[in-house]
Every structure is written in structure tokens, then in C-alpha cells.
């Protein structure tokens, strides 16, 4: 059973250890492939990590004119092959989640490769390894999608186009406000 990223963003403390950890992974050239967003600055300190969503049909790979982006058998969408990538940025435009970036100096795309050097050896990715709050977990795909204590999302509707992702998001409990995340009613400052 393939393992996937599960993000429980109620637990995110915005510390960005995932980003620093990502920089420490071999082959990542000290460039972080992870992003952390402030959800509603000025209103709350809530934050959320945004890793690659490892789409079932990845738009980045499909849009790549030179087939530089490989998808492994267990579904990890890899960073562009150094030999093939022409830094055309098609992948950055195609990705609905805004994940692939281009290293302008080296003219090469880089993105989360699920720490393939680590996960291929049975270890969790660096972001999962270091995350101090278990916001980012590495779970069996079925387990992540059937989280009993939380509503999860792995299908996303972009104007009628539905994209299924292997990365699974745990949705904050807005009904009971159990974790203090309240629906925002006022304008952002």
C-alpha cells in the first residue's frame, strides 16, 4: 500500500520546521519545496503547510513538453529530471496548487519529490520527520482517506475540473469549533 502525505492543518503552528527540514534532505540543494501560508493574517495566527498534492493525474507532468517529470509506481510526482528540464515553466503554470518553482540561476524546476531518497528506504519524508506537531503525517493512502475523526478532502473542483490528489487534507472542525478555528465573518484587515 502506497503511503501519502496527510495534512491536519488545525495542528499547524506555523513554525516552518517543514521548510527547514526540506532544505536538509539530500538532493534538495538546500532549497525548500514546502510552503506555509498564513490563513487569515491580522485575524488569527492560523497557518497551513502546502506540500505538493501529488495528483493522481498531475497537470505538471502532463504539461511538460519534454517529459521531465516522472511519476513513481506508488504515485510520487518527482521533481524535474536535471537532464531533461528546459525551465519552460509550463509546470508552474499548469499546477492548480502553485507548487513547482524554477531555480532561475540553474534554470531548472524543483518541487517536492516526497523525499524519494528517504521514502524509498522506508523512512518518512523530512517534512514529516521533523514536523513538531504531527501536522504532516505519512500514512497508508486508505488510512488517510478514511480518517474517522475528521472530514478529509482529496478531490478538488477547479471550475468544473475535478482533480484527485494523493495528498489528503484534514478539514478543520468548523461546526463545533473544537480547535478554535472560527468561520471568519469580517473583512481581513
Amino acid at each position, binding site marked *: 500500500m502506497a503511503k501519502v502525505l496527510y495534512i491536519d492543518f*488545525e495542528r499547524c*503552528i506555523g513554525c516552518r520546521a517543514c521548510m527547514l*527540514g526540506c532544505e536538509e534532505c539530500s538532493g534538495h540543494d538546500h532549497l525548500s519545496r514546502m510552503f506555509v501560508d498564513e490563513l487569515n493574517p491580522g485575524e488569527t*495566527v*492560523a497557518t497551513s503547510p502546502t506540500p505538493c498534492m501529488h495528483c493522481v493525474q498531475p497537470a505538471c507532468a502532463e504539461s511538460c513538453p519534454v517529459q521531465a517529470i516522472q511519476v513513481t509506481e506508488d504515485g510520487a510526482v518527482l521533481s524535474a529530471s536535471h537532464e531533461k528540464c528546459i525551465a519552460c515553466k509550463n509546470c508552474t503554470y499548469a499546477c492548480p496548487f502553485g507548487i513547482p518553482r524554477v531555480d532561475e540561476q540553474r534554470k531548472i524546476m524543483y518541487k517536492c519529490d516526497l523525499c524519494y531518497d528517504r521514502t524509498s528506504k522506508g*523512512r518518512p519524508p523530512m517534512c514529516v520527520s*521533523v514536523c*513538531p506537531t504531527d501536522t504532516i503525517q505519512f500514512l497508508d493512502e486508505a488510512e488517510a482517506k478514511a480518517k474517522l*475523526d475528521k472530514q478529509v478532502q482529496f478531490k478538488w473542483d477547479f471550475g468544473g475540473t475535478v482533480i484527485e490528489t494523493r495528498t489528503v487534507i484534514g478539514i478543520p472542525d468548523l461546526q463545533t469549533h473544537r480547535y*478554535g478555528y472560527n468561520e471568519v465573518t469580517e473583512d481581513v484587515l
Partner: protein
Amino acid sequence: MPHPQNADYSQRTYAAIEREGEVLIPTHCCFCGMQCGMNIRVDKDSNQVLGVEPRYDFPMNGGRLCPKGVAAYRQAIHPERLLRPLIRKNGQLVESAWDEAMDLIVSKIRDIQGKYGKDAFGIYSGSSMTNEKCYLVGKFARIGLGTKHIDYNGRYCMSSAAAGFNQTLGIDRGGTNPWSDIKFADVLLIAGSNTAECHPLSMPYVWGARDNGAKLIVVDPRQTKTALVADIHLNLKPGTDLALVNGLIHVLIKEDMINHEFVKNHTSGFEDLKAMAEKYPPEVAARITGLPKERIVEAARIFGQAKNGMVLFARGVEQHAKGSDSVSNYTNLCLITGKIGRKGSGVATFTGQGNGQGGREHGQKADQLPGYRKITDPEARKYIAGVWGVDESEIPGPGISAFELLKALGKEVKGLLLICSNPMVSAPSLGDVKQYLTSLEFFVCMDFFLSESAELADVVLPSTVWIEDNGTTTNVEGRVIRINGIDKTPGEARRDWEVLCELADRLGRGQFFRYNSPQEIFDELRVASRGGIADYFGITYEKIEKMDGVFWPCPSVEHEGTPRLFEDRKFNFPDGKARLLAFEHKGPNEDVDQEYPLLLTTGRVVYHYLSGNQTRRIDSLRDKCPDPYVEIHPETAKRYGIENGHYVKISSRRGYIVVPAKITKITRPDMVFVPYHWGKTLAINNLTNPALDPKSKIPEFKVCAVKIEPTKQQEVRHG
């Protein structure tokens, strides 16, 4: 197989990744009191530090690290490391030879002590050092220099927790429980602690409790990342903790949520506490704290009705002129409901400094000898004199606390050795502190970066970072752990303990400082602590390795340590009973008035550690939070015409700083918040109040009166 004491931790079973040509050194983070386990990647041939690798099998953190932990190794290879001694010549610090520096230091010590007496040379130390170094510094002061003037920066950190625990429980181990117990609480009351940012690796334990259905009550003026996930957030007015807790106790008593059996058999003083709480019905507590009274009642009910519960707090409770009493009052909540001495029930403070716990146990406090012995106790003096091989009369009497020591500089104290501390950022009322330091006849500093304080020294000795030495530290739980290091120091930098031993030798006291390794110092520490409150006698390096840390007290070699205190319900007083002490709310030392109408409180951000001397230099951390800022509530900002990102001048009676505004609803309208990790013109401690708690001598960092105004002035960045 993990040792049974570690069964409930957040351990993970993966093996660390090993790469060809590298060795992994299993050690611990150098920053906060969590002391997370980590592996340092080191090049086999050159002994060069290369990076970090998760240490999944260490029970406390299971490989998890906060951003400071991930980046910590970078200071070992940092270009700003001090590589040679610096001596001030013609007003400038210039690189010099070790011999010249040591000769100068020794001659100045002799000169000053000859002219003014032994006590005229003092030591101001730190708690981010190993137990071995902390012990050695205390011994060096007393019998190397023969001075009573030694104290340390733990006075700014956890001294109120120590004083509070001592007066209530008779023992100060920071936490009464192993951290894994947090997962078994039915209610967690976290007060004055932004746990998520200041001790991120506690969060898996908080989440563990939450996953089991525990309720979370957070007491903090700001809606921090910790408060964001609370069931009840008590965003009280800064400096009103005593009134809040009195209000909670009032409700607990009125609605009979008291454990009468426990109170009767294991505590004393309940009637006095009851009489005090009588004066604080919820409406009174609500008026003082600025909270709705219903929320106080609800919090009391949640806490009182839970079977198991823990009270956890930190500097937000402690750094007040009434900090020690606030600690005792929060501890009262556990005592009157019988929530102590078992899994999921107890009280703890979050250790701020790396070795804040061990650093205050082995004799670098002005009033203490190793093992938490009182320096005024004749029996203790006699015992330690025996361990050290000196006459009891050679051990000086008690000195004065850290801030009092700073105030004595240039007067009673003419020369100072500063080790592992940066009071030019961390002390209150910094304008005065600079005057004190510059009025010294001689000022020597040991550090591995040129801190704001070191810049003022006459001599700076280059020391080593944690990964370049061996030793032990004591974490937030009271668990003594091993710090392993590489056998290499950069340039001519030398290890602090070796420098102290050489200084002692040059001062003619070398016979008391013959050590070949930190382990030899630790073995002496074990004996020195034997029979004391903090008894380390049964803890050996081998046992620490075998058990992944040993909890003190551990009185014999056969003993396996004491993860949980008070399981026998015996408190550390002659009658075995904990003391329920009653406290009146009197408010902070300085209140608002027409000229200074707002309250200022200070705290940490997750990317920086203490004075920022280390973390501000590490690019990946500095980039995430390069400069301080002031959090202002939108209503307040509107009143003063301040917009997001605009520069604001904040002034108190002692000084001012100019920082950009961060307008946010997470703070209260009657207060502002500024993080404290920066120096010089960006140091918020230019403003803070040096009023001291009479029991712990901690300054009132957490509340003072200020005014704010928009300004076009911009201070220099990266102070």
C-alpha cells in the same frame, strides 16, 4: 526495546539514514528545555559538521524538531564564530594569543582582588551550558576565585518557578511528571505559555491529550497559536494571574469540586486559602482580569470536574514581581483538586533555557551549593567542603541575584567574568545595564559569537558550541541526558571547562580543578549532589545511554530514577504535607496612567532563542523573522492613527524603541506585545521594568506601562 519508563512517549521506530563517509553523533538540541534528540551528521575524515538527521528513537521527540533544532548545527560552521582571543587595545577588540589573554585576566583578577577584596571579582553565568560546566562555574567562583558574587541568567527565566515550587511543594524539579503524562490528562490548563512557539515539541503531547478528549484551557493575554486551539481562552489583562486563580479557587470551593480527602491528609493551610478565595467571587475576578465572569466559572468547572488534569505554565506567569506567588497559586489548583502524583495529574513549568533545570541545581545560584543545598546551611557547607577538599571557611557566603549583581558593577564589584549569557539583550532596563558594564575596571567574556555584551568586554575568550563538547543536561522533565560532541574546535577556540581549569591553575588553585574530561567533572558532581534535594548520585553516563535519560532524584547506582514525583503523596516538608498558600492580588509594580496608558508584554517567536545571539546569525532562521515588531489591536491602532507596517515609537519610563506595527486581533486593546530577541536600539528590554520579585528576584519583564505614537523615524535593522 525502549526502557519501560519511555513506553508512553511519542517515539518512532525508524532507523536514522546513514550515508557513506559520514558518522552520526546522537545528541540533543542546544536550545530550549525540551532538549530534543537529534543526530549530527559529521564527515568521517575531516570531523566537519555537515548537517542534521532525525533521531527517531529518542523518546521525547521521536525525531521531530522545531526550526531552531533543524538549523542548530549551522552555528558550528558559522563564519562569525570567534576563533582567537580578543583583547581591547586602543579601544578596539583585536585578535591576540591565548597566553597574553590569560596573563592579562589573571593579573587583573589579582589586582582587583588585592585592592578591593575577593568579592570584588564576580561571575555572571548562564544556563544554556551542560551540568558539568554549571557545576564547575559555581566551584570556580567559590574556591577558584573565592568570591561570593556569582549568579546566573536563570534568574530571568525560571527562578520564580523554583521559588514557587519550593514554598508550596518543598522541591523544585520544574515538572512533577514525565512529559508523556500530559497525554493522559483529561484537562490541561496552560497559563502564560505560548507552548506552540516556545516549546513546539510539547505539542504532540497536548494533541495526544486532545485526541483522547481532553479539554484545553489557555490563560494568555494573546490568542497565540496555543490559545487558538483551546476550548476556553482566558485572555486576561497582563499581571492579573493571582486574581484569576483566586477566582477559579472560589468557584471550585463554592461548587464543592474540592478533593477533601487529599486536602485534609496531604496539605496544610486550606482554611487560609479558602478565606482569601472568598474575597474573589467570579465578578470580582472578572473585573480585575477583564474577563467575562461566565468564562471564569466555566473554566473552573472544566478543571474541577475532570478526573485527571495538569497545570502547565511558563514565563507569562513567572516574570512578574509576584511571579513566585502566582506559581504557587496555580499549583494550588492541582492540590485542592487532588490532581498531583499520578499519571495525567501534576504541575510543571516549561523550561526556557536549554539546561534551565540542571543549571539551577548545582551551585551557580548566589545562594546555593551543588545538589540544591543552601549555602547558608552549615551541614551543606561542611559536606561540600569535604567533597571539594577545602576548609569550610573557604566557601564564601551567599551573594546577590543577577540583576542586583549587575547593579553592583563598578561599585562593590569591580571585575566580572561573563559566561554564556548576554545581559545587554536579556536584562531589563538596558540603558542602565550598559552603564553598569562599562563602569567595570575589568570585564572578561567567554562566548562563541561576539554578542552585544561581549562587544563591551576588555577580553573575549572564544569558546565552543554544544556539539564540540561532551556532558549532560537536565531537560524540562528532570531527565538527565547526554550531550555528545565532536573532537574538534574551530581555530583556537577552547572548551569553557578547560579554560576555567587553566585559570584556576594560573591563580594557584589548580589542585582543586584537575579534570581530564567532562565525565570526571560529572562524577564529582554526582558525589557533591548526593543526599541533596537534586540527588544525581546514581546517574552515570552509562545509565543515561541505556535508559535514554535518567530522572532525578536518583540516590543510588541501583536506583532507576524518579520520573514521577509525589506518587506516595509525601511532599518535601517535615510533615509531608504540601502548603496551600494564600495570596492577595496587588497588581503589577507599574500600572498605566495618563502618560503611559498601555501595558507592554514581551515574549518569544518560534525562530529565535533568548537574546538571539545564536539564532539571529543563522540565515534560515533570521530570514523567517529578521526584525522585531509590535502587535497592536485594530481598535488601538485606529485610536492612535497607526497603520499596518507603519513605524511606531513605543516608550516607557526607561527608554523607547521604534519598530513596525503588526495590527492584529490576537492581542488585547489595552496592551501591546513585542518579541525580545534583539539588541541595541531594537531591544524591547530598553523599556521593561527592573522591579524584582522579592522571593525569586526575577524582574517584571511581562508587564510595564508604555505609550505608543506613529513615527517616520526608522531605526537601523538587525540590531
